[in-house]
């Protein structure tokens, strides 16, 4: 008889498929499983969270006051509609949804995860109309191809993380005009390139535009189908841009805006256009099917919140500044920026049925919501009302980077009920959130909160 030993890692593999969430506590404690419901806690304490896990014989009641964070596996949503907005609240929270109504007292967002959310208008800091929410290309290990398979890129939750030289590539369909964005974080000097509008060559990315980001400059090259650099007009597409963003920061939002008919490509860093290129012989979008991130040896980077959405081709609107600050200087006025760059000062503004009814000094205007770009919210007179911090407050993060803070009142049947002075009581789908930070008012817990690993 030949004998061999197996460790309990076998059991680990068997149990790994079941958990849907991870609950983190102080002192590096954590458990995996499924949140079940809230139940009455000890006298004077917050309700306990009952947790189901194959690791425990019975459901376990964990003390809410001891929790740092719950990480979940959110399901991607595909909201329909045309009047989407990014709403920013006066506590720094922000969330996306369909702007369905606005009057003197409330702003209503229609969401797939909580139905209609009615926000107190004086607690809304900003409202930006966006095109249909970008399709979130959330990293899922099985969809991405990593080269080498170990030691460089890997998927960690909704993040792509790299420790060394390698590539991470994904198959996707590019619209004719698109906006490709992702959050980028790095350590110790950025040396990174992203290959977009690439094609598929024997399972690997080839062709396409290679955007190189180094510490003090950025440039773009065009690759032939076999990976070689195109010689026509030199290897570079357009000029090299000198910039300081990569050397002065360690994270930013990088967006590539492209029109595959005209060959126009723009690079935006944190919403600011920093460089534009034009390829006289553009790569047609239907010939491209791959996106690839590449890192060099020793480079630590994290890529997250990868989005791809159609772009309306409005180049001028790329660099329009948010007039919120200007509007704050004249609180009686309310300014609207339209997609074409026009700015309207509204005496009254009411939104509903897909239109904004604007009364101006020169008469009434009715504008479809999708033609709006920014709705500046006038600052209320006196001290602006800020939401009161409450015991049991949680901060829930959406996969698209948005977040919302509320008091956790109930959790059961995959729903979470919360209260906030900003929107009252609402019931959310639990699987709309990527993570929920618990006890956000307890500053002593801050140093212990789990951090994303590199």
């Amino acid at each position, binding site marked *: *008889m030949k004998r061999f030993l197996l460790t*309990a890692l076998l*059991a680990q593999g068997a149990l790994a498929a079941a958990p849907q969430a991870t609950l983190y*506590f102080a002192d590096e404690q954590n458990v*995996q499983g499924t949140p079940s419901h809230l139940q009455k806690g000890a006298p004077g304490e917050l309700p306990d969270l009952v947790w189901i896990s194959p690791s425990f014989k019975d459901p376990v009641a964990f003390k809410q006051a001891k929790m740092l964070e719950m990480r979940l596996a959110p399901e991607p949503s595909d909201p329909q509609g045309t009047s989407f907005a990014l709403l920013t609240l006066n506590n720094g929270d922000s969330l996306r949804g369909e702007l369905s109504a606005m009057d003197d007292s409330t702003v209503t967002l229609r969401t797939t995860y909580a139905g209609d959310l009615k926000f107190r208008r004086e607690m809304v800091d900003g409202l930006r109309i966006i095109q249909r929410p970008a399709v979130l290309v959330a990293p899922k290990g099985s969809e991405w191809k990593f080269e080498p398979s170990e030691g460089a890129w890997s998927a960690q939750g909704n993040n792509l993380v790299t420790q060394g030289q390698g590539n991470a590539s994904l198959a996707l369909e590019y619209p004719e005009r698109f906006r490709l964005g992702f959050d980028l974080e790095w350590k110790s000097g950025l040396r990174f390139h992203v290959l977009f509008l690439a094609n598929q060559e024997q399972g690997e990315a080839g062709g396409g535009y290679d955007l190189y980001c180094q510490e003090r400059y950025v440039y773009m090259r065009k690759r032939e189908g076999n990976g070689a650099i195109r010689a026509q007009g030199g290897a570079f597409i357009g000029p090299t841009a000198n910039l300081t963003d990569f050397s002065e920061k360690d994270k930013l939002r990088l967006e590539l805006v492209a029109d595959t008919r005209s060959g126009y490509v723009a690079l935006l860093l944190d919403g600011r256009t920093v460089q534009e290129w034009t390829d006289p012989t553009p790569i047609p979008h239907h010939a491209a099917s791959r996106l690839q991130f590449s890192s060099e040896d020793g480079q630590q980077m994290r890529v997250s919140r990868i989005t791809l959405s159609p772009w309306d081709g409005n180049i001028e609107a790329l660099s329009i500044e948010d007039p919120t600050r200007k509007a704050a200087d004249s609180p009686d006025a309310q300014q609207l920026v339209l997609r074409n760059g026009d700015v309207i000062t509204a005496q009254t503004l009411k939104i509903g049925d897909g239109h904004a009814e604007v009364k101006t000094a020169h008469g009434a205007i009715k504008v479809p919501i999708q033609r709006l770009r920014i709705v500046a919210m006038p600052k209320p007179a006196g001290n602006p009302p800020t939401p009161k911090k409450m015991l049991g407050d949680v901060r829930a993060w959406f996969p698209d980077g948005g977040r919302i803070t509320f008091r956790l009142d109930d959790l059961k049947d995959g729903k979470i009920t919360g209260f906030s002075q900003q929107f009252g009581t609402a019931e959310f789908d639990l699987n709309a959130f990527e993570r929920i930070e618990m006890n956000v008012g307890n500053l002593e817990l801050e140093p212990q909160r789990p951090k994303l690993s590199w």
Partner: protein
Amino acid sequence: MRPLPLLLAAIFLPATLACGDDQVSLAGGGQLRGTINDLSAEGAITMLPRVASGPIVIPRDAINMVKFAETAPEPEAHPSLVRLRNGDSLPCEVLALDSANLRIRTWYSGEHTIPRTAVAAMFLGMRPERPVFSGPDDLANWSENSGWRLEDNALVCADRGTIRRDLKLPENYILKFRLAWEGPPNIVIDFAETTGKPKGPDYYRFTLNPGGADLKRSKAGNRFTPSLYNSGPVPTLIAAGEAEFEFRVNRQAREVHVFIDGRWAKRAIDASSPELPTGTGITIQCQGNNQGQQMIKNIEVFEWDAMSQSHREEGPGAGNSDSIINSDNERFSGTLREIAGTGPKASVVLENPHFAEGRMTIPRTAVSAVYLTGPEPSLPEGKSMSLRLRSSGLLTLKDSKFADKFLVCEHPLIGAMRIDRRALDSLSITTTVASEKP
């Protein structure tokens, strides 16, 4: 085949274990801390986690490892270690050995009689690793400080800095420390250097930077030997932001063993001169990286019983006979007749027709290691628990359960045991399965 120690060596424990807490690492991922109240005969653990409102039951299959809190110091350090044929080991006092049995005494489980056929080796007269230094302690005890500060029991340097100290390194020693860095590491540590000013030319230089970890020996004329150890670039090590380094130096054998994060990395023979560096001091240099702080903490020095360690690694040797290795590094083969007597009169009797009178009697105090021949044991099948003792022991147990302050269990070679809870370090689940020969 005994892979058990390797399996356990692969299990890492967090350095920040809260004092006084038992810790359970779950097979499905995750870990909890609290108090373990019970271990049932089925292997299920009843625990009161600090974060739960009541006790919970964790089935055996859901347990990866249990780390027990250190509630009290061990009352006794045993001078010997018995290694069994299944790979287990017990720190103990050897009372006697005859042709049939070995008798031992332990503080944690009383006396046991073990069939001689179950014993693979005995290591006698081991010296515990005597602690020599634990720090960094007070900054005032260091010298020539430029740029270092003490913060949470760690030496921290924000840019460039140097600091020195006489660590009183013994003849053979273990030097270990934990380095942490923000941005790329860039730190140089010279050890075994003379403590005068200026320091002598002969010392070891350990360097950690993005190119990896490197150990060289310094020679006169600002020259260095080729690397005794060089990791080459290890992005995962650099990315981790911290690591523990350990150097075991055996001056007689001219060996330097390198460990990184508890894992053995290299045994280097330093043949650059007849003697290894004799200095007892250390200089720590932060060379700056313009990106963040670098720190060193958990600096420890132990006297190293390098000879016993060497004898423990030697193995039974070729042939089908027992072997004895004495403290003069001599090795004799034959049939071990007995270990008998107590105190200074205790002796080890080895029979061999080539010896005068066919036998040799060696004072027990002169014997370092004994290897016994015997049949390969049959390992029990199914799930079992591997118990690690605080003092380097390892036991494979079946049917373990807690009773009062003891772990009551069945050992496949020793039989019933009642182990004092103070001796327990950790418990992990192991599955032994049998398959047909190919």
